[in-house]
């Protein structure tokens, strides 16, 4: 097809397509939208998108997120930097003195994990994989709780 034919076809198709009338929307569309809009109006602020939350809620959630991220990065940095279990456990146990039983369990687990890391000989890779899994399951857990609490009960 030469250039002139191509141009002719383009013009022909263009005219034909532009002549097409609008398609009628389904009659149920208005009803569907109004139902969804009213359902949305009944939602509490915490069930909506984060961007629409009140400022104070955004600030608190942001601060919580930053604190969690800070804690994770501190712990990861401590492990990465090769701090021994004792100094790390002392620091954290002072901080979490009210949660002694939980801490004892965590400490044992943490010690076991560190032992495994030392045995494996590739601690960096293992820590990275473990951290990713931990974050993943944390997200799944938090997401599940939010879904059950915020959406199912709405």
């Amino acid at each position, binding site marked *: 097809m030469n250039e002139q034919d191509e141009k002719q076809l383009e013009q022909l198709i263009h005219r034909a*397509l532009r002549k*097409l009338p609008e398609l009628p929307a389904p009659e149920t569309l208005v009803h569907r939208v*109004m139902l969804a809009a009213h359902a949305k109006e009944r939602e509490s602020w915490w069930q909506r998108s984060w961007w629409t939350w009140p400022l104070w809620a955004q600030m608190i959630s942001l601060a919580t997120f930053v604190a969690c991220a800070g804690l994770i990065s501190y712990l990861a940095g401590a492990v990465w930097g090769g701090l021994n279990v004792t100094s790390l456990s002392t620091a954290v146990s002072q901080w979490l003195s009210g949660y002694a039983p939980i801490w004892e369990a965590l400490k044992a687990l943490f010690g076991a994990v560190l032992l495994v890391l030392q045995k494996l000989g590739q601690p960096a890779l293992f820590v990275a994989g473990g951290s990713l899994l931990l974050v993943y399951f944390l997200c799944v857990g938090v997401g599940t709780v939010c879904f059950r609490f915020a959406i199912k009960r709405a």
Partner: protein
Amino acid sequence: MTDSQQFEAFMKSYQNMVFSTAVRLLGNQAEAEDVSQEVFLKAYERYDELKDSPTVGGWLKTVTRNLCLNHLSRYRARWRFFSEMRGENDDESTPEWAAPDTNEQQVAAGDHRQLLEAVLQKLPSAQRVPLVLYHFEDMSYEEIAAKLRVSLSKVKTDIHRAREALRKKLKLKMTGEEAWGGLHGAESPCPT
């Protein structure tokens, strides 16, 4: 008139335009209805700003187009893959449409339009989307390439194939006005 009633009236004014745009881009009525609902929910959230805006039609069209492209981008890798695999055998893979073999001149213009609409919707996404963006949304080849994040040559090739598919499926005669009956008329020029 309450806000809800006002919004319903607003919706009724624009629902055909939004739905048509979505159907032509998505090629699927059910998905188009979902996208239309999403568009109007966005409009509902911003209704106070939109109701007196002179550019509300343009806003709705842009939101519809973007939501449709977002929807399609979820399947982008797949349709790009198939588009490139299709290659030169494209005509064989376009869906069959039972175009009337009898004298088309006797078919009413309304039937031609239905036929064209149906053939358009049955085109593969890789061809239909750039074609619709070019001819209905008045976007240039360059804008389409940027929007779809594909090369300029691919956009041109896909649009060319789409036009060829339409021509073949509709048994369009390049020089014959009669083949298109009432479809012709003075319309806006092509984007380029």
